[in-house]
């Protein structure tokens, strides 16, 4: 039985009992407990089921390396699957549930997989489930999917908050054990800005549980003194519950801080994600104990030796009454001492080594514990709980020589340095033969932009496994028991039979056994990455923290090569899993891609506009009135604009000022048109192409002064075009004297459109907006009423139209004034859809509709906007390539359906026959298609093979489903072909 001991427990506060439940059963722990220590303390040894065979699983470890003891934590919106109990702090009211079983933890149908284990070796699914063909999708995969997965599925949106923060420091020390503390002291005393972070809630790491003295005092006292000094240093920042999750290029470290995990709903952010720029990262991340591979090493009650003593010393929890220790090293004898000190029984220590002369074994023997040398465990007895072990000769095949009753097994296969952070960004490892471990190679560190190391390693993470070695790295004296060398043991017993190897687990969560790795090797999956992927070794939620080295060793053995020749798999971030919530931070809901708002947005909102997202803006699509459908509203807005006057919030339009002695030359390169010759006071419609000649943006350019132009871009394109301009100026034409500034948000812009537009402006008084004073394609500046206006006579609708730009601060007032003054004239706002329909009626192109990155201006009948005089412009050379000048291209035309219906969006015009790949030939497609209230029927623009030469021809387009629609090829302009209305 695991149980709570009557005394002791460094980390628990017995005065503060906490209630929690496991599978609905009420249990009790203490403040300072982890979920794991509380479960063990409450006698719960079996806590889950494994992934593939659904075998019973218990707690193995006491930290981040735990593969088994995952639970579903919390309920409803605060439910969280796959919560690692060994690193989760207990809190009052915690609700936990075991995972991966049906109907219950103790009785699980899925266990049948275990009975059939021989049929399910590594990769069996690659060899089966192939016939009949449809069966995979309809039969096998659904079954596999049902039984797969681990945790439950959260059902609701997450109610918690997450925060993100930045930190900058000279030195980041990852790990708050004695090595980390010593490193922080050294750097802190030297005046560096230091961040010292520790993933658990406690400082000091393993040392207080193990024995030892530092600098002449007990380790625990040294730690206390170190903390006191560190806290007194203003340049040192210390954080617990803070994991360095990943090391990235240029010394960028992602930190993951647990803030309110143990106080759900207290209003604080649950997690905080830190982006840290560190000059140097010192990884002092310790080491992880390795399990041993023997049959039944996965039965609940078999644990790491270090975990057993952690539970005793830190939480006063005894994992069992009778604990057999099995080891290949001296360190595990510390567990025996801890057990004895707690008054528990250690029936036997099984040591795989032939001799045990170290100080620790001697001390343990002196206390009367039987030590069997050269022995191993043949198999563990028990299924959902250890009941005993069979002992055999380590050198043999597993013939049992003795059976020992016990309810816990503490195993130790030696230690592996935690090299994850070191490796994330390219730090290399070397194999340390005497200690049988990979450790960081100081000559091949991860390097920063300057080629120098951006990380170093200290303490056990560096392979300095003893306290003395660790502290020696800092010039500090320390001592603990001397330790004799370990003897690598990768299989117990060395000659284990097939039957035993099929029960000796390497990856506990994913059920990967020694036999699986050997099978992979036999089948040629000999690269360590192949083995991993074929067997799923190390792919579980612990990412192989316990299994990797053992698996590597088994693989190397199978291949008959030394371990370093096999190499390791890649260590990738994060060190342990981090919540997607933390990665998201505050950027959710309203703050997910914050909305850009025009100065007039609130007015649209008050009107109940129907929205359309455009880039990061949201523009009114239309303003439906009560009882009106969207299409009704659009029709009304168009008709009113063409008959009376309409207003559009055009503030989202890109407004980029280009200024400088070389501005004209620059714009001549950017636009296909000539902009340098544009007279001050005039506007010109311009086209921009990319280097490949494709049309990428358009807009009206106004020359504001001798050396200053204002370029209007599309709403969605403003930032891109601004970046595009900067790109050319910074990378190619860096010696040209030009500045560009994106003033999109500095101005509100309102289009006043329709036959009564002038009348409306005149009601405001002020500047002269008559045809003579402000002709078409001109602009003027002045006072319009009380407003500081720059007015452009440009038209995207074919109507008399003014676009009035005012400082953003005046935008709403101007809009409201125009609305009020215009009431008598029948003014109405119109949205983007009316804008689109009206421009289509005029045959004006829309970037993104008529263009898609494959269309050149020549296709769109815009050759007139391409200067023939200029020596060069972006896209010019590309447009001379053979395919671009091919006379047989799809070109823009108007389309009128014969029956008046509207051709569906995206419709294509099939042509006769099929191409070499069996696809139907095509001869065109629609690019814009609308019901035109002005014309009273469906109109469209489209790209049609040689379209402009085929006026009057009727071709077919794909309709909804399998239908076809007949349309006649006509000119692109459907309305006011002579352009009389806009030029009045």
């Amino acid at each position, binding site marked *: 039985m695991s149980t709570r001991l009557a005394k002791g427990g460094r980390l628990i506060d017995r005065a503060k009992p906490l209630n929690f439940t496991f599978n609905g059963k009420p249990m009790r722990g203490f403040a300072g407990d982890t979920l794991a220590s509380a479960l063990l303390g409450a006698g719960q040894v079996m806590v889950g089921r494994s992934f593939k065979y659904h075998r019973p699983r218990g707690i193995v470890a006491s930290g981040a390396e735990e593969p088994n003891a995952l639970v579903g934590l919390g309920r409803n919106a605060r439910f969280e699957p796959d919560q690692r109990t060994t690193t989760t702090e207990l809190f009052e009211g915690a609700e936990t549930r075991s995972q991966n079983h049906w109907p219950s933890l103790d009785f699980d149908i899925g266990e049948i997989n275990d009975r059939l284990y021989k049929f399910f070796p590594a990769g069996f699914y690659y060899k089966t489930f192939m016939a009949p063909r449809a069966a995979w999708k309809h039969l096998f995969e659904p079954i596999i999917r049902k039984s797969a997965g681990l945790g439950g599925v959260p059902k609701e949106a997450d109610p918690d908050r997450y925060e993100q923060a930045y930190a900058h420091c000279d030195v980041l020390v990852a790990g708050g054990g004695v090595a980390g503390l010593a490193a922080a002291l050294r750097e802190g005393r030297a005046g560096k800005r230091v961040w010292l972070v520790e993933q658990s809630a406690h400082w000091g790491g393993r040392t207080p549980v193990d024995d030892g003295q530092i600098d002449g005092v007990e380790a625990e006292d040294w730690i206390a003194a170190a903390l006191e000094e560190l806290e007194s240093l203003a340049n040192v920042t210390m954080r617990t519950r803070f994991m360095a999750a990943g090391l990235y290029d240029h010394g960028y470290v992602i930190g993951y801080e647990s803030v309110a995990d143990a106080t759900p709903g207290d209003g604080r952010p649950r997690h905080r994600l830190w982006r840290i720029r560190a000059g140097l990262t010192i990884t002092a991340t310790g080491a992880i104990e390795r399990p041993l591979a023997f049959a039944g090493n996965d039965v609940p009650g078999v644990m790491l030796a270090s975990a057993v003593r952690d539970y005793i010393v830190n939480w006063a929890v005894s994992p069992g009454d009778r604990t057999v220790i099995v080891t290949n090293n001296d360190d595990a004898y510390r567990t025996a001492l801890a057990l004895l000190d707690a008054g528990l029984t250690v029936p036997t220590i099984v040591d795989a080594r032939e001799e045990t002369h170290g100080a620790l074994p001697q001390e343990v023997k002196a206390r009367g514990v039987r030590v069997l040398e050269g022995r191993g465990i043949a198999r563990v007895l028990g299924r959902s709980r250890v009941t005993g072990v069979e002992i055999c000769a380590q050198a043999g095949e597993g013939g049992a020589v003795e059976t020992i009753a016990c309810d816990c097994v503490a195993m130790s296969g030696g230690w592996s340095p935690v090299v994850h952070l070191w490796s994330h960004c390219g730090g290399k490892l070397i194999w340390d033969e005497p200690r049988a471990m990979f450790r960081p190679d100081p000559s091949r560190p991860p390097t920063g932009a300057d080629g120098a190391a951006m990380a170093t390693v200290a303490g056990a993470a560096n392979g300095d496994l003893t306290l003395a070695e660790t502290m020696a790295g800092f010039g500090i004296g320390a001592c603990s028991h001397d330790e004799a060398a370990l003897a690598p043991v990768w299989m117990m017993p060395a000659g284990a039979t097939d039957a035993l190897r099929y029960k000796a687990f390497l990856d506990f969560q994913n059920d990967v056994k020694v036999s699986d790795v050997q099978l992979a090797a036999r089948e040629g999956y000999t*690269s360590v990455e192949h083995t991993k992927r074929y067997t799923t070794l190390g792919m579980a939620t612990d990412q192989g923290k316990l299994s990797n080295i053992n698996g590597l060793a088994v693989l190397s053995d199978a291949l008959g090569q030394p371990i370093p020749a096999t190499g390791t798999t890649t260590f990738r971030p994060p060190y342990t899993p981090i919540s997607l919530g933390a990665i998201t931070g505050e950027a959710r809901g309203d703050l997910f891609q914050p909305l850009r708002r025009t100065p007039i947005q609130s007015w649209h909102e008050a009107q109940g506009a129907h929205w*359309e997202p455009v880039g990061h803006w949201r523009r009114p699509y239309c303003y439906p009135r009560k009882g009106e459908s969207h299409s009704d509203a659009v029709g009304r807005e168009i008709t009113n604009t063409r008959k009376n006057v309409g207003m559009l919030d055009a503030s989202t339009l890109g407004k980029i000022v280009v200024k400088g002695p070389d501005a004209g030359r620059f714009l001549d390169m950017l636009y296909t048109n000539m902009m340098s010759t544009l007279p001050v006071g005039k506007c010109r419609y311009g086209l921009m192409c990319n280097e*490949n000649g494709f049309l990428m943006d358009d807009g009206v350019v106004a020359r504001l002064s001798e050396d200053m132009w204002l370029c209007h871009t599309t709403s969605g394109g403003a930032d891109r075009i601004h970046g595009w301009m900067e790109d050319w100026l910074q990378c190619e034409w860096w010696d040209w004297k030009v500045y560009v500034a994106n003033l999109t948000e500095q101005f509100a812009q309102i289009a006043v459109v329709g036959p009564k537009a002038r009348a409306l402006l005149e009601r405001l008084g002020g500047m002269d907006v008559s045809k003579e004073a402000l002709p078409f394609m001109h602009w003027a500046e002045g006072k319009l009423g009380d407003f500081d206006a720059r007015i452009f006579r440009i038209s995207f609708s074919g109507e008399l139209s003014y676009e009035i730009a005012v400082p953003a601060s005046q935008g709403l007032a101007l809009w409201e004034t125009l609305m009020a003054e215009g009431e008598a004239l029948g003014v109405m706002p119109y949205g983007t859809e009316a804008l689109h329909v009206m421009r289509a009626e005029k045959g004006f192109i829309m970037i993104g509709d008529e263009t898609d990155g494959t269309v050149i201006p020549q296709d769109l009948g815009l050759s007139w906007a391409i200067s023939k005089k200029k020596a060069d412009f972006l896209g010019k050379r590309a447009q001379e390539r053979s395919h671009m000048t091919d006379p047989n291209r799809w070109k823009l035309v108007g389309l009128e359906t014969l029956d008046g219906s509207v051709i569906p969006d995206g419709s294509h015009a099939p042509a006769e026959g099929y191409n070499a790949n069996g696809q139907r030939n095509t001869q065109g497609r629609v690019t814009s298609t609308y019901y035109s209230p002005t014309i009273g029927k469906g109109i469209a623009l489209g790209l049609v093979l040689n379209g402009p030469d085929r006026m009057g021809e009727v071709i077919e387009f794909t309709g909804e489903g399998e239908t076809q629609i007949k349309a006649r090829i006509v000119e692109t302009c459907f309305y006011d072909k002579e352009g009389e209305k806009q030029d009045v």
Partner: protein
Amino acid sequence: MKRYSIFAVAREAMRYHAGWERAWRSPTPKKRYKVIVVGAGGHGLATAYYLGKVHGIRDVAVIEKGWLGGGNTGRNTTIIRSNYLQDPSAAIYEKARALYEGLSQDLNYNVMFSPRGLLMLGQTEHEVRGYKRTVHANRLQGIATEWIGPERVKELVPIINIAGPRYPVLGALYQARGGTARHDAVAWGYARACSAMGMDIIQKCEVTGIRTEGGKVQGVSTTQGEIDCEQLAVVVAGHSSVMAEMAGFRLPIESVALQAWVSEPIKPCMDVVVMANTVHGYMSQSDKGEMVIGGGTDGFNNYTQRGSWHHVEETTRALVETFPIISRLKMLRQWGGIVDMTGDRSPILSKTPVEGIFVNCGWGTGGFKSIPGSGYAMAELMARGHSPLAAEFGLERFREGRFIDESVAAGVAH
């Protein structure tokens, strides 16, 4: 080659699976092969496979500097679809998808092709129009896709948030027989089948030089010695331009990192693949239960298979917004691959200025789905000198300006 079947597994179960042979041999290179394929990713292996299977050319070596399938083929998010817009793309991706349907049986290796359905969300009017255009194009290309409304989307993906607020889901482009497959198995299955045909798959062998004479290929220099060949297929994804340089020509390829990550496994909750291009992210759930997530490419060229962190944030945000329940899941592992990007984001399957050298690259962020089709077309191009599926993907298109640009149809890497 010993056939795989449920009976074979049962038979082996009785003797602790001692009777399985190597999936592929581990040969030492011969002096000369008719064809050398450089790169044992999916595309290289499939090229070799169809050379043997369709054209009877079996004197083939596939040379790989690391472990087979260890490039992007073993790093991708395994999305398979053929709902492409432009005819040449649609043709080759649909050929690939169709071959995937029978690939497990063809290779006698279960690649777990799972046509579970794929949705590309429309979240702006512009995107909606774009996808409707794709549906019309696909209809004429013989590819079954449809436009579905938001209610149907919700039905297919109960965990999705269709209500916004930022970008409400307006509908989706749905390909019912799009889906996923097991990436490693695709590489392994092809490798095993190639090896069974007598081809040599040579791992841990890096090509360090290409020998040419009089504008014709002679062979390659490798870390395992000189090897001669009549034809050389360069199929090395992110390292294509490096290889081209060895042969003395240039390729319009840029290499950038693309990342993916997975959550911890949970019980099945999403049966289809969802791509959300407006917000920039996509997600599916693997058979193991992990949510498999991918996002955008790095903005700078490099060869480290890592990628920059801010993309992880951007994409995760997009997906938490789209699937609010995943906020409490945890990211288990994050990785990157070096993808080979062309100017028009479409692949290159082509002869080159050097006689006898062919390139197959430029699949960029989306070439897992095309592996069988690409291998099929490449083999045809090499064996016959012409392939209708490859015809439009020649290098000359960049000179002629005959781009095959899919950017309208897919704003996101996948």
